[in-house]
């Protein structure tokens, strides 16, 4: 994995992240959010975790982004518009970033190159997932089911109001 690819992906990702965070037009922000996730998936590919990258695209671009755009669509008719920007947030975020950056630079332990390893196959992941992490897997399944039902219940409009 070479620096060029890294640089390209990093610029791509961060640009779209910034766009998602600051673009006043909701839909564009949401779409660039999706694009950002493609970038992150690219990072994962770069780091030799194809599976996770694919899952990332699958879940975020395929599902979450669609959810978000749908939500934007359903909540379009605003009573009062709210543009404008809170600069307090910018300050806090900047401060946190500065702190983190300083900490990362300061710790020399993390400036290491990647060891050469053989690629992680889906088969390995599946085996581990089915043996060692089977309980967490089940728990996540239950959680997702609960989330599904909860979301349905939340948005279920009772016909009486119409």
């Amino acid at each position, binding site marked *: 994995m070479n620096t060029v690819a890294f640089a390209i992906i990093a610029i791509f990702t961060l640009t779209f992240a910034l766009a998602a965070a600051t673009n006043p037009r909701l*839909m564009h922000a949401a779409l660039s959010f*999706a694009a950002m996730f493609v970038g992150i998936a690219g990072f994962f590919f770069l780091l030799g975790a194809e599976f996770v990258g*694919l*899952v990332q695209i*699958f879940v975020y671009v395929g599902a979450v982004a669609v959810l978000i755009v749908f939500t934007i*669509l359903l909540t379009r008719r605003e009573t009062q518009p709210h543009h404008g920007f809170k600069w307090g947030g910018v300050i806090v975020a900047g401060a946190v970033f500065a702190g983190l950056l300083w900490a990362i630079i300061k710790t020399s332990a993390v400036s290491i190159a990647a060891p050469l390893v053989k690629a992680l196959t*889906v088969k390995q992941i599946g085996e581990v997932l089915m043996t060692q992490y089977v309980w967490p897997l089940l728990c996540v399944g239950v959680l997702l089911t609960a989330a599904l039902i909860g979301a349905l219940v939340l948005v279920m409009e009772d016909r009486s109001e119409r």
Partner: protein
Amino acid sequence: MSVGAFDQIFIHLKQWLLSPLAGRVPGWLLQIVSSLLNIAVLLGVFLTLFALMSVLERKILGRMQNRYGPNRVGPFGLFQPVADGIKMLIKEDIVPVSADKVVHFLAPILVAATAILALGIIPYGRNMTPFVIDGGILFFFAVGSTTELAVFMAGWGSNNKFSMLGAMRAIAQMISYELPLIIAVLPVVMIVGSLNPDRIVLAQKYYYFGFLPHWFVLTPWGATAFILFFVSGLVESNRTPFDVPEGESEIVAGHMTEYSGFKYATFFMAEYLGMFAVSGLAVTMFLGGWHPPFPFLAFIPSYVWFFAKLSVLLFTFIWVRGTLPRIRVDQMMNFAWKFMLPMAFTCVISSAVWYYTGHRLLAWFWSFAVIAVVYIVLSLFLDTRRKFTPRTYRFAE
């Protein structure tokens, strides 16, 4: 199996093309070049196929309706697509005033891109997989799921009621049928134990009793999963009878209403490419990929077999389109969630049964029994004689 010269001819061609570069340029550049080569070939083949398909569909539909199809341009009207292409290209490209320009522009590109990407992982012949990814199937679906976003962009971008409705319908049906699509693939993946298309194809190379091919479509769960997969594929590529999103009579042309000229052509192409991709995956998954149906036919090159199977499936697509009327939205949704999904899960279970009863005749019987039972129970529960739920336009309000 003898690897004939014809079988590997394309591989050798590519190697010959790359041989001057080999050694002179760094490895990554070579890699990039070879993948570019792959992409070029892929595009060439499938765009040609698209052109051919578009005219053949019209001709076949014409025959089905007792009329000649296009037969004026070129021999048998085979140059019709060229004419269409030129027409599309020189048409004015209209962008609505109130449209969201960027999104409106990006949508067709994204649609086409996803469709082409999905084609990348399908093994077209022995050693003829353009991009070998370990999680190829997952890649396919990951890319495929991006289409929804693109369609939505199209609908939103062209700031138009019909486009929005069409996009909504398209996304709704795509999401609903993506589950059966994916879960119908799971049994194969489980049995083979890999998400790698090449492995899946190789797993189907054996023959029962020396002549009966070891394709997954010949097992009870495989057959059921194949049918489910095919129906879901119809929906995913918005083909009749599931072309609700662009039902002319209801909403002008769905999310493509505001598109004209080349962008429209792109959408059109993307639809066909998606169709190719789904059919290709079906061939890979269930129909034994590029393996010949009988061992003694192995002398015919593998890619020929692949494309033969592919064209059979494509013909079925056209046939269905020529035969069936359009289905109602709510009925389609009911069908997805109440029938397709449970059946898909049943396929998973029955493949598990098959696996654990050791692939023998008994296994055949048991896995068939599981499917049959569930099918009967389902059809008892939602008997179609009772009317479906009163039609409600959840997405039109």
